[in-house]
């Protein structure tokens, strides 16, 4: 074993996580989110499909250095490792915060793998506060690394990318496109000529999603080796998304345990009954398994790259199943109130379900992991 026993989670990471948690609490994104959705008679059918995003919070996050965190020093960043980014991603999940930061971190790790001068130039912009998302998927068999339906000719992009996350919140996008038979990677600002977007109607209230259509849009090529780069960055991406879920599931656990102490039926707090108590304990067990696997994956990626894929697939496999279980029990054990628009549980329930499908659910992760044996 060449890994630090503490997962590389040292004092610096503890301080960062604390300040991230305090930041999220201060900005109270949940209250803001509820305020934004309250009173709408049929919130899903309105025309507005924003991710309820607070641009001021983004500016502050940039000032706190969170976009520069994982950017290498030679590209003007702080050059921290994945476990450090995980510390922040977990807090974003715990707060169910609508923010482009998570996708920007994912894009950062893809650009790090690309390693070209052009990629470094975009990384420099991220360090300076540019937010970025990924447009890697086509519509069919979208989890394949070459599923993109966008084509490139001399860095001019044409075609449509599907399931692009947080497109209403970001400044730029990293696009996978086929040039001849090869998948190559490009960066482009969303406001550039020839880029148009359509918003999906999605279940998750904390994110937004859509399609991006390119019509001869002039982009910067950042890598010729698209498939290799995406595959190399996949473990870090899976780990960051799993960290988001780990944070969100801890919230679901704590919220459900707290409710079981105050809601009284049959003259007792419902947490007295084992049909309530034991599933809450099972939530804790699955949430703890996920958290441990997330830290282990981050630490493996930081220190022993050869074990990265397995460690990350196990983390995402666990995160997906934990999400399903914790969301399910949290809603059920709240009874009627847990089924309402009013209650925060629904916000988390939808967020973790959404994350579950990003880059593949548990069944998918396990089928990929098995190939490594």
């Amino acid at each position, binding site marked *: 074993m060449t890994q630090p026993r503490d997962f590389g989670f040292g004092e610096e990471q503890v301080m960062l996580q604390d300040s991230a948690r305090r930041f999220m609490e201060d900005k109270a994104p949940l209250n803001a989110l509820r305020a934004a959705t309250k009173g709408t008679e049929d919130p899903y059918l309105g025309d507005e499909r924003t991710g309820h995003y607070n641009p001021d919070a983004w500016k502050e996050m940039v000032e706190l250095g969170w976009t520069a965190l994982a950017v290498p020093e030679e590209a003007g960043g702080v050059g921290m490792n994945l476990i450090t980014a995980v510390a922040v991603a977990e807090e974003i999940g715990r707060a169910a915060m609508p923010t482009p930061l998570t996708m920007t971190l994912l894009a950062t790790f893809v650009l790090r793998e690309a390693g070209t001068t052009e990629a470094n130039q975009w990384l420099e912009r991220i360090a300076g506060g540019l937010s970025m998302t990924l447009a890697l998927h086509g519509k069919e068999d979208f989890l394949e690394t070459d599923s993109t339906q966008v084509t490139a000719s001399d860095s001019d992009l044409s075609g449509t990318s599907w399931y692009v996350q947080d497109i209403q919140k970001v400044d730029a996008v990293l696009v996978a496109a086929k040039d001849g038979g090869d998948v190559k990677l490009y960066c482009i600002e969303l406001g550039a000529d020839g880029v148009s977007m359509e918003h999906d109607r999605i279940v998750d209230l904390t994110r937004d999603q859509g399609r991006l259509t390119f019509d001869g849009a002039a982009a910067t090529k950042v890598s010729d080796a698209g498939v290799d780069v995406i595959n190399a960055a996949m473990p870090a991406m899976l780990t960051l998304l799993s960290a988001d879920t780990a944070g969100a599931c801890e919230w679901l656990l704590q919220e459900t345990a707290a409710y*079981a102490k105050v809601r009284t039926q049959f003259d007792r707090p419902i947490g007295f009954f084992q049909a309530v*108590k034991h599933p*809450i304990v099972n939530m804790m067990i699955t949430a703890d398994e996920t958290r441990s696997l997330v830290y282990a994956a981050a630490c493996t990626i930081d220190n022993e790259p050869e074990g990265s894929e397995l460690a990350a697939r196990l983390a995402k496999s666990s995160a997906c199943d934990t999400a399903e279980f914790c969301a399910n029990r949290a809603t059920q054990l709240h009874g009627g109130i847990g089924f309402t628009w009013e209650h925060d549980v629904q916000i988390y329930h939808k967020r973790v379900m959404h994350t579950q499908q990003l880059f593949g659910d548990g069944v998918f992760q396990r*089928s990929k992991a098995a190939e490594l044996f």
Partner: protein
Amino acid sequence: MAASETAEQREFRAYCRAWLEENRPPPTAMPLPQAAYEVMTEDHRSYLVDWQNKCYEAQLIATDVSKEYGGHGHNGFQQIASTEVRRANVPYFINWIGLGMAAPTLLIHGTEAQRKTYLPPIFSGEDIWCQGFSEPGAGSDLAGLQTSAVKDGDNWIVNGSKVWTSLGHFARWMLLLARTDKSDKYNGITYFIGPMEHEGVTVQPIHKMTGESGFNEVFLEDVVVPDHMRIDAVGTGWKVAMSTLTSERGAAQGVGAVATSESPFAAIESLIQLAKTKKRNGRLIWDDPVWRDKLMKLYERTEASTQNFRRARVDALNGGAMRIPLQGKLTGSELGQELHQVALSILGQEASLYIGDDNSEENGRWALGYMNTYTGTISGGSSEIQRNILGERVLGLPKTK
């Protein structure tokens, strides 16, 4: 090597590894049972006591215990020794109750004289210990125990019976809970060192569903226990018992107890190998995506339990000192059970073949192992009781009495 490990710790780890490699004992004539819970024969007993004593002398046991109590006086080395013992896949330590429960209990609650008398032979394996907690009428509700101890001058006279007493047939001493006050359920219990060789003690083996023995019923009839063998004050037995149980469930600092020799990882890895050799439906089981999913889920959870163990030692990440340790016995035993269930379904009709059948897979180990997983899910507080404890102590939910 681990960044937070000191040079001395690294050196000690290397020493443990080398020692275990060089001193691995030859196999026994009859194969050992899967765990120390099931040791029955005299041959196995003496072989295992020799092995434990050798490991004790090599400083793998009582590594961090101070020298005045027979320990080796190190600091922060025990965990390394125990990890290496587990990794080396060598025989388990027969005196697991002595090491895992009696020693920690005596270190916390024993008198100076008790520690000096009883600890060294626990470490060497010379004195085997058993645990006399459960009674026919007191299982999960342990405080319902009725075995009585009545003061008679400098002695106590003990009457009653204990059940499911593992290793009672080899034991010299028992961790004995007895009622000294009938009017107070919890504060009426006192903790003693029970002398198994005194007059009035009868040990009767009980057979397990596996066909093995290993636990017993113990009858206590006017057994004389000197007062100096009382642990802690009269009426504090419940509190002391809770600290013993914390050790039993693996949540306390051990002194080197390792009761089984197979690591969970070795088990899941051999299961994957099994799936790569057995066929179903015209193809290898491993080539069937449904099976792969099942196996990878087990692999994921096994890795998670290893990583939980690691995270429990990182203060900033463990969510409270007891949160992860209290889950260890529950998740470990249930995971082991599921793993064995899956093994039996991979074997299919072959799962019917048991120990001694030449056509069985590894002499029936999966069927035997499956049945023995209930040891983990029932003893030391059942899984249901563990869930109560976790809900109440870690999450603060209202108590189920």
